[in-house]
């Protein structure tokens, strides 16, 4: 890796960028343009973000705070835990001396925000022995922490065993490389049986122990209850947003989705996240009342559902393109919560979670259930065509949103989906959903040039008569 890169601390760069951007809340166009010059290396994420108004400001504020906490962790005598996006972080906030660092979020931000993208960090991972073909979603940010260009990591905890190899593999590598303790929750290939549930509970309790041993401090029950109660409110808000997504035209701006899931992965259970969701709901309600589409153009020509994740390799290029073409972004599996009341839940027992704050034990059970039902841990843990797995989820979602088409966008590093995406595409087509496979890498712009990606997308929408 270029030596000069080590001179910047990634977390600090984020903190600085967001804290500056935050100040633009009620700035004029001119002031804004001026201010943004001070946001280091912004490659054009902030401007479209700020275009979203209130919720975006809260989002930026939230991220500024999040990264400031990481930067100041040592000063404040806190430990830093490296974790993955599909892990509900509220548990970390329930002990008073722990700050989570979520790699995938870091990678996405680095790719979207930095002029030079996250290439150098990705390549650094390869240089220190991590498989070059591994998923890019971790490599981007992981490189920074391995290279010492980010916060010092004290422990690693995640929940990807049995769900995604490359993911779990990346974290166990990081733990090994940095020589810090590692704990991974493990998930069987099914979801609903009693044994599985027992496994989840047992495993999660060992995680709790792990955290207590390595942070040397006990869980604060009241704080945990507070977080979970807050999470209930958040779930309710999310359900409302989901519900309103079903309207034609869809009143939810496509970019909201990334705000929704990015913040959830780092701030679930915290007040700022609730604030952002409230502000969103307000705007969405207004749009809905006026029958306005969430698209800038205002005209919804087509509704696309992303059956996996979004593309972050070029700022918000993908959302822009959708917007320009009047395609409503119906979210992807990351925007889902499988809370019991979520509109698309199948009602099959065990497929959703319920938050119970009666006592510590029931709260721990709830958290175990939540973690086992995060978007990925819930949807792609088993065979794609098994009950309540990828195919069924996709069909039910595409159905209630009455999507016109499906799009797969992921990373070549994802063995899990690239080993069966051709099959699910085939099935979705059979069920009448035109489905497009994007060969690009969500985080690494070098895999396929953006022009090519767009050219193929455009071709798909035209040939399949969607526009």
């Amino acid at each position, binding site marked *: 890796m270029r030596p000069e890169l080590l001179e910047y601390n990634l977390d600090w760069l984020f903190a600085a960028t967001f804290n500056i951007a935050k100040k633009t809340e009620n700035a004029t166009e001119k002031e804004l343009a001026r201010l943004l010059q001070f946001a280091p290396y912004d490659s054009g994420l902030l401007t479209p973000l700020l275009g979203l108004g209130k919720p975006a400001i809260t989002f930026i504020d939230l991220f500024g705070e999040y990264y400031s906490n990481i930067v100041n962790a040592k000063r404040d005598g806190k430990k830093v835990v490296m974790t993955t996006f599909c892990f509900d972080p509220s548990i970390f906030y329930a002990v008073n001396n722990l700050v989570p660092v979520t790699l995938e979020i870091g990678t996405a931000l680095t790719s979207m925000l930095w002029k030079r993208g996250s290439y150098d960090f990705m390549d650094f991972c390869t240089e220190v022995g991590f498989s070059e073909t591994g998923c890019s979603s971790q490599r981007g940010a992981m490189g920074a922490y391995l290279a010492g260009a980010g916060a010092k990591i004290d422990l690693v905890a995640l929940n990807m065993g049995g769900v995604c190899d490359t993911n779990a593999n990346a974290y166990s590598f990081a733990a090994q490389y940095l020589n810090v303790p590692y704990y991974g929750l493990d998930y069987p290939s099914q979801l609903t049986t009693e044994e599985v549930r027992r496994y989840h509970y047992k495993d999660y309790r060992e995680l709790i122990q792990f955290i207590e041993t390595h942070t040397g401090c006990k869980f604060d029950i009241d704080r945990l209850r507070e977080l979970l109660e807050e999470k209930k409110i958040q779930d309710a808000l999310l359900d409302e947003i989901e519900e309103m997504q079903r309207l034609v035209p869809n009143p939810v701006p496509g970019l909201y989705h990334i705000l929704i899931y990015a913040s959830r992965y780092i701030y679930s259970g915290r007040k700022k996240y609730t604030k952002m969701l409230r502000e969103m709901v307000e705007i969405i309600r207004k749009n809905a009342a006026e029958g306005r589409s969430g698209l800038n153009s205002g005209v919804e020509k087509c509704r696309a559902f992303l059956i996996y994740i979004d593309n972050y390799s070029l700022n918000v290029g993908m959302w822009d393109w959708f917007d320009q073409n009047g395609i409503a972004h119906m979210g992807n599996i990351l925007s889902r919560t499988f809370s019991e009341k979520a509109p698309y839940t199948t009602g099959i027992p065990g497929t959703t979670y319920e938050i119970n704050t009666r006592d510590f034990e029931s709260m721990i059970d709830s958290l175990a259930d939540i973690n086992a039902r995060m978007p990925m841990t819930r949807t792609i843990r088993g065979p794609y065509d098994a009950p309540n797995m990828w195919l069924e989820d996709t069909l039910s979602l595409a159905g209630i949103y009455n999507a016109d088409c499906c799009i797969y966008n992921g990373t*070549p590093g994802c063995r899990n989906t690239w080993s069966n995406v*051709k099959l699910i595409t*085939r099935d979705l*087509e059979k069920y009448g959903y035109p489905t497009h*496979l994007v*060969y690009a890498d969500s985080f690494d712009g070098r895999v*396929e040039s953006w022009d090519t990606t767009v050219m*193929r997308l455009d*071709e798909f929408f*035209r*040939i*399949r008569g969607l526009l």
Partner: protein
Amino acid sequence: MITAGCDIGSRTAKAVILEDDDILTYAVIPARLDPRKSAEDVMKIATEQAGISMDSIRQIVGTGYGQKEIQYAGRLESEIVCHAKGAWWNQPSARMVIDIGGQDSKVIKMDETGKVIRYSYNDKCAAGTGRFLEIMADALGVPLEEMGEKASASNERISISSQCVIFAETEVVSLVNEGKEIHDILNALHRAMANRVASQARSLVVEEDVILTGGVAKNSGIFDALSEGIRIRIKPLEHIDPQINGALGAALIAKEIDRS
């Protein structure tokens, strides 16, 4: 009524001029570095051959990799649609078209009206395109035109593993060193290439009739290898150069536009 189609590909530029339902003339030229130039040249040649002037052409549809550079095109259409249209017009029984060009290979499924149902491009890697065979022909010092027959003269079955065009080349060299016969190596190359395309066709579920188009369809060796790969006999286009199929489709679309 006269219409035309122009297909600016990565390796060659093609133009077809239609008078109602008959092909007046067509031209195929190697692509120039600048696609705009290719478009001008190929059209000039075609119109001269037909002995007509540009403005006597009612409608021109452009397609292919360099379509955006075709100044005179009245409309642009994707290669997928053009190839489907051309092949279906020539063979109404066609349900699947496999087009292997210089830079990519496409598999297209269509219904009995020639409408595209599904399609796919070659997976990431360049092995499985005409370029692959070109580089190999070059490495073996065999003219492209003769590759096919030479390959079918093979009597020893050897296999080429390398997925990479560039590395396959060194693999070929080492096979030559081992004293393998050129036609056996060629045969292996054709199978290696065909199998990549075959897997592409199989993922869309093969349906008869299957038609092979694009410049590579001029290569008899590919027909056998590909048919073996999908376990179904592939058909050629009848009485026309498969390389112009895209341009032909474009010309046909031009005609339809003008009707409506």
